[in-house]
């Protein structure tokens, strides 16, 4: 996976509402998520890489653009479709990114004010 793909997924997960469009948070979480994915064991990386290709092709098929080229609204819709998909691998793909991004996001000291 390349960084831009990861960043676009993280941005779509974090920035669903205007109150959460903290650029520093998106960049910080995206970089940390990308670093973790780069360090994954090969077995997991292969699976995630295949799903990432399918994820982009899905976008191309549905709206005529790969994921990172879509508007934020289109990206959020695609994530929702995969989150509720009948295909387990699709659900797990979104689940993985959501869990990882959330763990990193809520571990950031800077997000503490969001939890007040």
């Amino acid at each position, binding site marked *: 996976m390349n960084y831009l793909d990861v960043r676009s997924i993280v941005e779509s*997960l*974090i920035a*669903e*509402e205007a109150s*959460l469009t903290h650029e520093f948070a998106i960049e910080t979480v995206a970089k*940390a998520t990308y*670093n*973790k994915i780069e*360090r*994954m*064991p*090969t*077995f*997991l990386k292969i699976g995630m890489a295949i799903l990432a290709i399918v994820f982009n092709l899905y976008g191309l098929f549905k709206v005529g653009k790969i994921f990172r080229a879509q508007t934020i609204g289109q990206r959020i819709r695609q994530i929702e479709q995969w989150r509720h998909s009948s295909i*387990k691998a699709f659900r797990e793909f979104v689940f993985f990114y*959501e*869990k990882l*991004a*959330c*763990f*990193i*996001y*809520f*571990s950031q000291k800077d*997000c*503490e004010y*969001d*939890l*007040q």
Partner: protein
Amino acid sequence: MIFNKTPQDKISCEVLVIGSGPGGAITACLLAEAGVDVLLVEEGPFLPLSSSKSYSSEEMDQKYRHGGLTVAFGKNKITYAEARCVGGGSEINAGLYHRPLMQRIETWRHQYKVEGLDDAVLKTCLEESERDLCVSYMPDQLTTPSLKLKNGAEKLGWKFTETARCFKYQKKTDGTWLEQRQSMTETFIPRALQASCRIMPDTKVKSLILKGKKAVGAIAIKTANSIKIDFQHVFVCAGAVQTPFLLRKSGIRQNIGNSLRIHPMVRLAAVFPEEINDDTGVPAVQIEEFKPDLTLGCSCSSPGHLALWLDGTLQEKQQRLKNWKHMAIFYAAITADGVGSIRCWPMIPEPFVSYKLTQTDLKRLGEGLFRLGEVLFASGATELLVPVQGYEPIKQLSGLEGLGSRGLPSGGAPITAIHLFSSCPMGEDKSKCAVNSFGKLHNYDNIYLNDASIMPDSAGGNPQATIMAITRRNAKNFLQI
């Protein structure tokens, strides 16, 4: 001496110790203190305890293999924790110290024909570890989540214990306590260095060189340079996954990596009307009413960790986590019947780990969540957030009855493991054991294993104390040969 720059292409020692977790660190230390020329090689970095906050994302990046993303495959994928740093698991765990259940050790003697491990010998080794690691109880009040478990257990008449820890406590002038984890980098590693043990961090042993029944050397990689290590004896102490992986890659396969055992865990988040969580301290209370099959306890409950166990989108989690000080994570860990394996695949640099949970295991895990519900509602919890597919927040115990009676649905909940062992069991029964009763690899003259992989089976709780006692015993036995 610590090697930080790439040494010459070849290095010699009397004993090579591979891996610096509790098994390797104790082995290297005791041998070095006895005058043996020891080289301790560790794949991960040499970092102080203070390099990152415990259980943080930074700590996972620095000290966990693959940044914490290690998975055992199977119908139920299990995320497990594996350290990759000098000191191994002792640098990242909670430091909880549990003596083994003696009836489990008795089982080892019978089922695996482990010799020379009578109660008196084990007790001596345990006591020596306890002295070296300052094993003690928290002098101050227990954390609030621990008190909640204790309170619930008392109301239900359940057996519970406050677990001792490998921590040193010093009272400060303001009356509070300074606590210092007694990990390997604080205890046995400095002692080993003092005894002239050489340590080579950031160095991965790729394979052993075998000639007949002997290992005659090892090939290691440090900063992309290949090093040949010559030795007379080798102790492989790389952990329950990496030890069998290295041996299988080197062509040693008899009873290696076929019998991995773990303590699978499920977790839930409990919500209380009052504040209970200040994200400090390690919960030290465990419920022992259902041991050895089931243990209940509390986990790290920082906002990041709470987010892992909550369902929903980030926005939904954010709403929930505004209340994070009223929440804590509790776990149910089981002694499993299932078994896993470690295999090497061509062209893949990491081990392939798989684990099969049985129906009984899933039933126990479901029962574990039910029992957690019992004790937490008894202690005043108002809501339980259970990460099982199809389960909304639970407000009364009846909401968990399905899990209690039918068990966890297969693939329906995240399962984790922090205790891995038994992948190369010890004993004189060569049909199932990889090493003899003292860790010497069957059918080889100079290869020893001395870590969690040689535990024949669960010791009935946190395995750290048992591992350290056995490795100490085995190292002392080696010195007497």
